């Protein structure tokens, strides 16, 4: 075996340039596939991570959630909220009041969405992900605190509201004017981005304050978390029926289980992944043709040598094996290099996406993909080498020896 390698190695080295070019084909093909796999694993993971926390959520809003329906939307009542809470399988239900209001800060006026919520419901709504911003460099330990039940005229603001909306940055203990009344900023939330970027653009106040600002008790949406994600769809239907009943209207309520939407998103994503892989595979096919060509040329050039080897007693099997091995070694090395280049490329792409779009996509390197990459490279190489290798092994020794 070792000697076979030696023979094969000598032949590869003898035709260094061509072997390297062939290898390059494989490297590019495998690198493309591997990079796409790793990037899409990363995307999948970050999507799943962001979304899995939302999978048990049902968003209850008045009217259908279709875009562009700017007509007068209805609203919910305290009774609707109580009824939703009573439905079995509902873990938490939080009422939210939301309205665009004029917010003034240092003489500058901007329209911002104000959200009224019971402070005790905030954890249910935000889960673990929304935290107060760490304020490392300014010395203060964190950006304020969370809203409390007995806070009055106090608000927590989203990251964008604090940093981008006004000419001046807003910090903890600064004062804003919301719809004419002064509010104190008690906390700045950590930047969310992605699927939660709406949080960045909102100002949170207590429900009591919201009632005062908005001058109404109407609830604009109900936020529900269910105990069992599997029951989410049924519970959503039940919520719709219950509230429609309360208001004696059909299709008044829209309850959307996020879990279903997440599944849809995931399947769209896997289609995209397959599509990208198909494109990458084309480069592999090109690489396969390259190997076949190289092996064929190698066979042609070495016709004489094959003849000599057969004349001194080499069986067809050994000749076949030598050429397959040559193809396998070239493509195997190509596969390993391809994996390395693929990992580098994935990181470069990820960094590129980060700098260009400010979206962070982790590169998820999986060992089985790397091993698979090398295996695919070798299989492609050996299969492409098969035809020329068979051709070589079948040659008549005299004919081959005569060939110069």
């Amino acid at each position: 075996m070792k000697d076979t390698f030696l023979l094969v190695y000598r032949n590869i080295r003898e035709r260094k340039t061509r072997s390297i070019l062939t290898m390059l084909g494989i490297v590019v093909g495998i690198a493309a596939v591997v990079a796409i796999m790793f990037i899409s694993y990363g995307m999948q993971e970050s999507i799943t991570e962001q979304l899995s926390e939302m999978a048990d959520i049902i968003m209850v809003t008045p009217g259908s959630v279709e875009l562009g329906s700017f007509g007068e939307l209805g609203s919910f009542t305290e009774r609707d909220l109580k009824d939703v809470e009573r439905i079995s399988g509902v873990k938490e239900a939080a009422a939210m009041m939301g309205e665009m209001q004029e917010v003034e800060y240092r003489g500058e006026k901007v329209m911002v969405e104000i959200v009224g919520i019971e402070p005790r419901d905030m954890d249910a709504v935000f889960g673990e992900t929304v935290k107060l911003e760490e304020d490392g460099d300014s010395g203060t330990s964190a950006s304020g605190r969370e809203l409390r039940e007995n806070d009055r005229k106090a608000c927590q603001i989203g990251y964008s509201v604090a940093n981008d909306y006004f000419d001046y940055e807003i910090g903890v203990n600064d004062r804003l004017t919301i719809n004419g009344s002064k509010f104190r900023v008690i906390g700045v939330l950590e930047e969310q981005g992605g699927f939660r970027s709406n949080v960045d653009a909102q100002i949170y106040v207590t429900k009591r304050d919201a009632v005062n600002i908005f001058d109404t008790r109407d609830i604009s949406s109900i936020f529900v978390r269910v105990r069992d994600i599997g029951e989410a769809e049924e519970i959503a239907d039940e919520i719709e029926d219950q509230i429609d009943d309360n208001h004696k209207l059909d299709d008044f309520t829209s309850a959307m289980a996020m879990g279903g939407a997440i599944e849809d998103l995931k399947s769209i994503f896997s289609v995209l992944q397959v599509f990208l892989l198909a494109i990458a595979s084309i480069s592999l096919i090109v690489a396969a043709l390259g190997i076949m060509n190289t092996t064929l040329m190698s066979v042609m050039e070495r016709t004489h040598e094959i003849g000599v080897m057969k004349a001194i007693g080499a069986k067809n099997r050994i000749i076949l094996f030598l050429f397959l091995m040559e193809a396998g070694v070239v493509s195997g090395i190509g596969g390993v290099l391809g994996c390395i280049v693929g990992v580098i490329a994935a990181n470069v792409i990820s960094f590129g996406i980060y700098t260009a779009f400010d979206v962070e996509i982790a590169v998820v390197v999986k060992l089985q993909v790397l091993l698979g990459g090398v295996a695919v490279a070798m299989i492609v190489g050996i299969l492409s080498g098969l035809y020329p290798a068979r051709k070589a092994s079948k040659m008549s020794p005299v004919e081959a020896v005569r060939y110069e």
Partner: protein
Amino acid sequence: MIHTENLSKTYRMGEVEVQALRDVNLEIKDGEFIAIIGPSGSGKSTLLNLLGCLDKPTSGAVFIDGINTGKLSENALAEIRREKIGFIFQQFNLIHTLNALENVALPMFFAGVGREARLKKAEELLVKVGLGDRIYHKPSELSGGQQQRVAIARSLSNDPEVVIGDEPTGNVDTEAGDAIMDILEGLNRDEGRTIIVVTHDAEIAARAGRTKRMRDGKVLD
């Protein structure tokens, strides 16, 4: 023992047929040193290729130790070429990527002999043909005569009963040719191997125990 029965070979190149060998009946006894001479194109190489199982006859047969080689599979023929026959070509035909030692060891590699044993035997054979100080040289670093001696060492690596040389001295100068003939003679005299050599050179032919003439694809008496 090798013998042929009505051995014929016809080459076909498109429309043209060349009868390179016509009904050759030849018997070569074990331990014989036979020289075959004849003008160029008389069919000497064709005959040797058939005797060496490198090619198949159009009709007739080659028998080696009583076995009709025409009835053997490709693998079995490869085994005969490897074990029973050592073939020496006019153009040496060494593998140019391998050094002398590796070239000599190659038939043993095909025979599945272990690495150590193989290289040891190869070195012994190279010493025997007077190239003990050249074992790591590539063919391109050796003279024609030296290359041919490597080829002889290679032909001996699996201890064949028969050594066949197709004009082994054809591409080397007289001095190197004599050295080669000395080696072949020694193989016959000291080791009892059967030697079949094709040559142009009457002087060289004279060193053989028996000489056969060929003309127009026929072996003359």
